[in-house]
């Protein structure tokens, strides 16, 4: 079984299981929308948003719903005790990690496909001014967040207090991702968009992704081996 | 005769228990009502007290620049002393915490070694 074949197998398994009842997809999506709303009440004053609020609220919603999705995805594995099965299968650990990463990444990107237009509507954010850069920021930022999150969520599966420990561990470490995502998106949403700035943030996100996916691949191997 | 009194006692205790349960439930319900009442009264009172919304600041005119300076009047000496004091305190608190933890572990080791030694002799 080729490496990519293994990865695809894991992704396909997750997608099939998810499509059966779509529990995580629907609840995560609704949670993201609710978060958008709640934060809007904090940052919208007299009908207009505080400067750069749109970008900030968007990424907070991504971070919160991402944490939720990560926790739930691995909780499902734990409840059905399938994680042990996966670990015992003749699948390379790194393929397993990438497969889970891809699955949760697809889920989050699907959620973002809904909330980004919502943000555009709610805050009159210019989504189509630089769509490619915007999408690149969203994808690289989400990859960075999910890369670290998948590793931690997988390792926390058998740990006590795992529900609260995931955000406790995840948020401080993904601070650069959040900063870059928010500031890059804000640079694009500004009245006079700052494309070079957005590109600077994008390059930082790319570096982060490369470094931390590599680190996570190595660490997953080291930690999951009994 | 003894059995009858015991049975009677049992019945009395049961009745007492039931009364206490009912009383407990009544007390809980009372507390709940009081809380609900307060929860409704307080915001109403707050709304009643609310004055006109304050005028937007822009209408008050500009604030003169010389009233906005940073805290130059703050004396530096207490800050410096506080900073050094904090550094010392934190370090010593940590050393103390380490010391206590070490004491505890050493005591436990002594205790368990004794038990292991005496157990081995058996």
């Amino acid at each position, binding site marked *: 079984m080729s490496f990519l074949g293994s990865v695809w197998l894991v992704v396909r398994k997750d997608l099939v299981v998810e499509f059966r009842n779509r529990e995580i997809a629907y609840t995560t999506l609704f949670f993201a929308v609710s978060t958008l709303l709640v934060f809007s009440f904090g940052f919208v004053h007299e009908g207009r948003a505080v400067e750069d609020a749109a970008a900030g609220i968007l990424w907070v919603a991504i971070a919160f719903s991402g944490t939720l999705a990560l926790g739930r995805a691995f909780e499902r594995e734990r409840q059905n005790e399938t994680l042990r099965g996966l670990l015992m299968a003749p699948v390379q650990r790194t393929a397993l990690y990438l497969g889970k990463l891809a699955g949760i990444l697809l889920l989050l990107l699907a959620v973002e496909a809904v909330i980004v237009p919502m943000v555009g509507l709610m805050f009159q954010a210019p989504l189509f001014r630089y769509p490619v850069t915007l999408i690149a920021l969203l994808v690289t930022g989400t990859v960075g967040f999910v890369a670290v999150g998948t590793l931690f969520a997988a390792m926390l599966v058998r740990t006590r207090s795992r529900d609260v420990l995931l955000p406790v561990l995840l948020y401080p470490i993904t601070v650069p991702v959040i900063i870059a995502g928010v500031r890059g998106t804000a640079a694009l949403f500004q009245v006079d968009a700052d494309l070079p700035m957005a590109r600077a943030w994008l390059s930082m996100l790319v570096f982060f992704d490369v470094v931390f996916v590599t680190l996570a691949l190595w660490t997953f191997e080291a*930690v999951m081996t009994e | 005769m003894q059995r009858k009194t015991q049975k009677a006692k049992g019945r009395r205790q049961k009745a007492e228990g039931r009364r206490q349960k009912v009383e407990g439930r009544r007390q809980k319900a009372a507390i709940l009502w009081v809380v609900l009442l307060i929860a409704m009264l307080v915001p109403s009172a707050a709304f009643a007290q609310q004055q006109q919304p304050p005028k937007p600041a822009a209408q008050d005119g500009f604030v003169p620049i010389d009233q906005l300076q940073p*805290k130059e009047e703050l004396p530096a000496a207490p800050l410096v002393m506080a900073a050094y004091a904090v550094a010392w305190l934190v370090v010593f608190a940590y050393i103390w915490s380490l010391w206590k933890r070490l004491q505890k572990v050493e005591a436990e080791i002594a205790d368990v070694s004794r038990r292991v030694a005496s157990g081995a002799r058996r």
Partner: protein
Amino acid sequence: MSKSFPVLTLILAGMFVYAPVLIVGAPYESTMGLVQKIFYFHFPSWMAMFLAVFVAGAASVAFLVRRNPRADALAVAAAELVVVFGAIGLITGPLWGIKAWGVWWSWDPRGTSALVLWLIFIAYLLLRRFGGPGSERLAAAVALFGMFNVPFVYWSVNLWRTLHPKTTVVSSLPVSMGAPLWFSTAAFLGLAVALLMLRTRLEHRRAELDQLFLALED
């Protein structure tokens, strides 16, 4: 406990007694005056914290690769020191800042980066405390990620804000200010080493205790 520990302690005690003499003797800085003297403890605390971050990260890698419990002991000791020295830096910073810049916290790059790193290692300690058995390896991953995060946190926060004295301050210090600064730095780093030795000793004794309990059960 190694023989060098008492010697180290004595030297450190002497250094910490002498440091205030040097600091009081240092000249006043022209724009900030007396309050700038907080620098002589503030900067060394940060140096000690960064030393601890890298020790924790390196020890965690060693632990993940070789599963050596002594590496894990060193990692947890270093993580505690990150929190201790970070706390000193995070408290002395605002005490300096309120006088020098008029605000308690200004979200400047170095301060904010340090805060994020501090939080990462608090998360490490929380995980070890509440994660239950088997959380050592996950904690090692956290420390490892924390160490590799240093440049990214600094890069991102720096691109976001700037107010701190520029990095060139330290290298351009006149000798009269350099001497107390580097003396204090040496003292703090020595203190960090001494505390590491103490804390790893605690961890080793705990491991011995666990072995004894196992022996008891036999």
